[in-house]
């Protein structure tokens, strides 16, 4: 279920996906991390190599899991919607959901579990408020298909699209503290930090949020 859009996400000079590098930068060194929907383990490998983390993963696809385990990563086959409930409170420092929240059945519950299991959560997702998405719906009159949202409406795994604005609303509804947020434009560069939220919502193609519990 993860990395639905991976093939089309910009990579940096080192060959790493820019959104994953951004996430890795938000993670402290040497901490314990759970990557929910870890795909073929690219982020876990990056975190292990660059941040010295104790990383675990959950992945829905059997191919993804087996590829991860064969690389020596600690990954189990499982479903974000059903299996997070089995983890105890405070088991991890960070729980990461990269490009996956839009494919979960119950995004709100998943997010609540993430912040129960982990001290902090990092969520990245494609922004459905991006101007190219809006323009396709408004002017062409069909469901949007973009580089990072390449699926037709009838075969997409993405069932819960949201905009940056929607995600912020959800965070405040469930009492989550937004510690950091970064929006990337279509070329994978971060938007100006002091830009207003409406600007991010229109020009951010994807967003990465660092969240923590509001104590």
């Amino acid at each position, binding site marked *: 279920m993860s990395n639905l859009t991976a093939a089309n996400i910009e990579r940096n000079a080192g060959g790493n996906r820019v959104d994953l590098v951004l996430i890795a930068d938000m993670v402290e060194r040497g901490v314990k991390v759970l990557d929910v929907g870890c795909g073929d383990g690219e982020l876990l490998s990056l975190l292990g190599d660059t941040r010295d983390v104790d990383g675990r993963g959950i992945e829905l696809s059997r191919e993804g899991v087996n590829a991860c*385990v*064969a690389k*020596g990563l600690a990954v189990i*086959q499982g479903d974000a919607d059903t299996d997070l409930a*089995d983890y105890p409170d405070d088991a991890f420092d960070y729980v990461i959901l990269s490009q996956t929240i839009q494919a979960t059945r119950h995004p709100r519950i998943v997010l609540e579990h993430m912040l129960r299991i982990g001290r902090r959560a990092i969520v990245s997702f494609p922004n459905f408020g991006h101007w190219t998405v809006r323009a396709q719906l408004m002017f062409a009159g069909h469901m949007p298909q973009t580089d990072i949202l390449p699926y037709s409406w009838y075969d997409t795994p993405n069932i819960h699209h949201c905009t940056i604005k929607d995600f912020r609303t959800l965070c405040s509804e469930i009492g989550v503290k937004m510690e950091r947020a970064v929006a990337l434009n279509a070329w994978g560069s971060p938007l100006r930090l002091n830009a207003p939220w409406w600007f991010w919502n229109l020009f951010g193609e994807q967003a990465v949020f660092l969240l923590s519990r509001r104590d």
Partner: protein
Amino acid sequence: MVHVLPLNGAVTRGEGLQEADRPTSQVAVFGADRPLQLDNGVALSPFQIAYQTYGALNADRSNAVLVCHALTGDQHVANVHPVTKKSGWWETLIGPGKPIDTERYFVICSNVVGGCMGSTGPASIDPKSGKPWGLEFPVITIRDMVRAQAMLLDHLGIDTLFACVGGSMGGMQVLQWAASYPQRVFAALPIACATRHSAQNIAFHEVGRQAIMADPEWRGGRYHLEGTNPRRGLAVARMGAHITYLSDAALHRKFGRKFQDRENPTFSFDADFEVESYLRHQGSSFVERFDANSYLYLTRAMDYFDLAADAGGVLANAFKGAPTRFCVISFTSDWLFPTSESRAIVHALNASSARVSFAEIVTDKGHDAFLLDEPEMFAIVRGFLDGAGKARGLARGLARGVKAPAS
């Protein structure tokens, strides 16, 4: 054809069962000063453990891999079997350059206590009476098997295992190792197993045991003394069990409804079908190398296995604080130890914050898949052990240092 050899006067043995007395293996003997304290309260003493080793122990004694065998397996995991003359039962996985690389790891495999290939079991001679134990042998558990293995490691001077690996009953031992001696197991690979034996599996075992005990040659377990051998009972037990190791799809693919060496049904109870002939062969070849009483004891040990019950009913507590890293593997068509059982292990390990990987492998070969050529399993075992080796600081390539310790 079985030649029955006289032994100790009245005692007779099947040809293969000479191994119970004089194993073609190294043997560790534990005298009166080192009894095996069993779960049923008995202190078994003296006793012996027969074992095989492969590769060399490194100078740090940090590269030992213990392989635990399944119900009808034995210590001959990666060498030609002394009775059947067939390759070792896990030679696909273990050897130079293989996923469990004997150029890198020091591999140990011992016959379980209660077995019949040289470790003390019901076919062994009870020193007090000078006769085979038979049903006088104490009922043993998976935990007893693991206690005996731990004593063997002490004997070999190995404090911590780099890895503990096994499938089916061997996987149960791996889980028991992690629960009993978490500090002595760096990495655990339980394959196609469960933390408890299900009612269905106990039921299958009971059918097997009843088949043995219904054979008039069983003689209340005293067949060694009376010069008989419950061959037919043990063969039927094996035939029934063997079906549970396969799958409907595998049986169909392999045999379908094909006739055995004939064009038409004989309208008799001959083995008309290939599948019948195959099962009969499985049964009759099994009795050449296995002791019927040993089969009773080992199936019983599996039945009693329930890690959660030992941990106050909460499975996660069995692994609480375990520093061990786990890799759990199951197979899609395994209905004896289905994936749901492996998932229960994974949930418990997650709940105790253990480092765990879990992979399910797609195959139609059923439970037996863990013994067969499954490239995906090999890749996972290799990757998991490589990752663990890195974390353990094991050097790549040939293990150098002390030779295998003398027994």
